[in-house]
């Protein structure tokens, strides 16, 4: 499937450093967003390491089919999905070791949301509160659920989404890459189709921009880069509380039907 992407990472309006990192490699079909945490500049060290290690591991797996898997193999998922998990387990080891060796980096960690597209199958893996959304036929659907205190409470129906957005604990994560000696990675596998759009993002976007508004941004723009730019501007317009990183991936060539749909959406906008 033909892949096109656009990406933007921005420090926001309140922070002085951007601790988000991303990676996009259409040849591998690999897209990653990491949101680092930890004092001083440790957060960006963690997110930088994560992005590097994940990319390198997936690339090496393509070159060497016998590359060993790091962490437990889950037979209910495809080898591709397991490879993505393996890359995150490896990143966890590297960051954790670095955090122990360097006192300045103690306690650092990062979120990871990652997508690996192989043909018509999307493998996804995530840890923390960076998210992946699927936009298909004018509808948006989250493919990840946050590993945060409020996220777990929403899963258990102790909180509604709206209450979660207002909670003072919405930034508190229950899992992070590099924080412990091992990490639990949540995996997923979904079929993808021509015309699908994926949005990977750090919480800088989701704090202020609701899925409904993300959908609107997608309708207004013509290519993935323009969508990414618009989403980041929207996050800053909503307060720019945190660093915002957005990677937008469009799948497949635009069909004629897709073109007509866009024209139709454009007409709806003018009305």
């Amino acid at each position: 499937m033909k892949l096109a992407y656009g990406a933007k990472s921005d420090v926001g309006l309140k922070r002085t450093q951007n601790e988000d990192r991303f990676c996009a490699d259409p040849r591998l079909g690999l897209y990653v967003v990491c949101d680092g945490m930890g004092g001083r500049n440790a957060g960006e060290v963690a997110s930088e390491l994560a992005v590097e290690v994940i990319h390198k591991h997936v690339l090496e797996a393509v070159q060497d089919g016998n590359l060993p898997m790091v962490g437990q193999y889950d037979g209910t998922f495809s080898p591709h999905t397991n490879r993505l998990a393996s890359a995150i387990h490896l990143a966890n080891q590297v960051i954790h070791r670095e955090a122990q060796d360097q006192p300045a980096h103690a306690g650092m960690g990062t979120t990871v949301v990652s997508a690996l597209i192989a043909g018509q199958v999307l493998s996804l893996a995530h840890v923390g509160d960076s998210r992946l959304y699927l936009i298909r036929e004018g509808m948006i659907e989250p493919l990840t659920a946050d590993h945060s205190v409020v996220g777990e409470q929403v899963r258990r129906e102790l909180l509604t989404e709206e209450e979660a957005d207002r909670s003072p604990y919405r930034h508190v994560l229950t899992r992070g890459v590099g924080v412990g000696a091992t990490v639990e990675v949540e995996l997923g596998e979904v079929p993808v189709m021509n015309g699908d759009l994926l949005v990977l993002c750090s919480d800088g976007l989701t704090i202020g921009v609701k899925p409904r508004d993300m959908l609107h941004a997608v309708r207004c723009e013509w290519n993935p880069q323009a969508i990414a730019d618009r989403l980041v501007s929207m996050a800053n317009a909503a307060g720019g509380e945190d660093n915002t990183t957005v990677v937008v991936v469009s799948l497949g060539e635009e069909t004629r039907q897709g073109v007509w749909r866009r024209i139709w959406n454009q007409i709806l906008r003018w009305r």
Partner: protein
Amino acid sequence: MSEVMTQGPKVILKFNESILKEIEITQPEFTIGRRPDNDLVIDHAAVSGRHARIVQVQSVFFLEDVGSTNGTFVNDRRIDRRQLQDTDVVTIGKHRLIFRDEVTNGSPSGQPKFRDLNGTMVMTGQKLRESRAEQKVGIVQIISGRTDRKEYKLTKRLTIIGSQAQATIKLTGYFVPKIAAMIGRRGEGYFISTSEEVKTIHVNNKAVKGQADLKDGDLLELKGVKMYFYLKGPNQP
């Protein structure tokens, strides 16, 4: 959801946005304070030498303030003694502790607990685990057409139907596409998705394009292969 509830109770110590450490609670009395002989040492001026403790009483955990200067808070409410629930946030000075009690398999602490929240009963770990164990698994039985087997158990997250090597349901006829369709598992249910090569499949003789949820007893037809989809309980023969 890969939130596998196999770990023992633990606390996650946070300061500002970063996780400082994760500590498992293995002792019946778990002490928190600034002095180095505590089980969890928080070296900060706002924390008392002996600040609080977590005590296990049978299967439940209680948090007690042991006469601290600045107080102990659970979900922003000051407490003297209070039962802890999974994901409770404990504030001590400027530090936050997250209490995690993902109920372990078959242990005494696996008693189903209910939390009263506006009168709603809420399932905790053990209950969720039970319901997952009872989850039904999808079966595809081949009625007619050329495939490598007659019956398939859909245990994978995504089952590929087609001629390619990774396909679980392998079509062996002539001129069959690499991927004819995919059956995905989502929470309790299953759905079928068409592929790039085969844009339309039939479910109960109705044409489906894109994605459709599967129901127990659905008849599927694609590329000359007829299949019967049904759900089977884990203990059914």
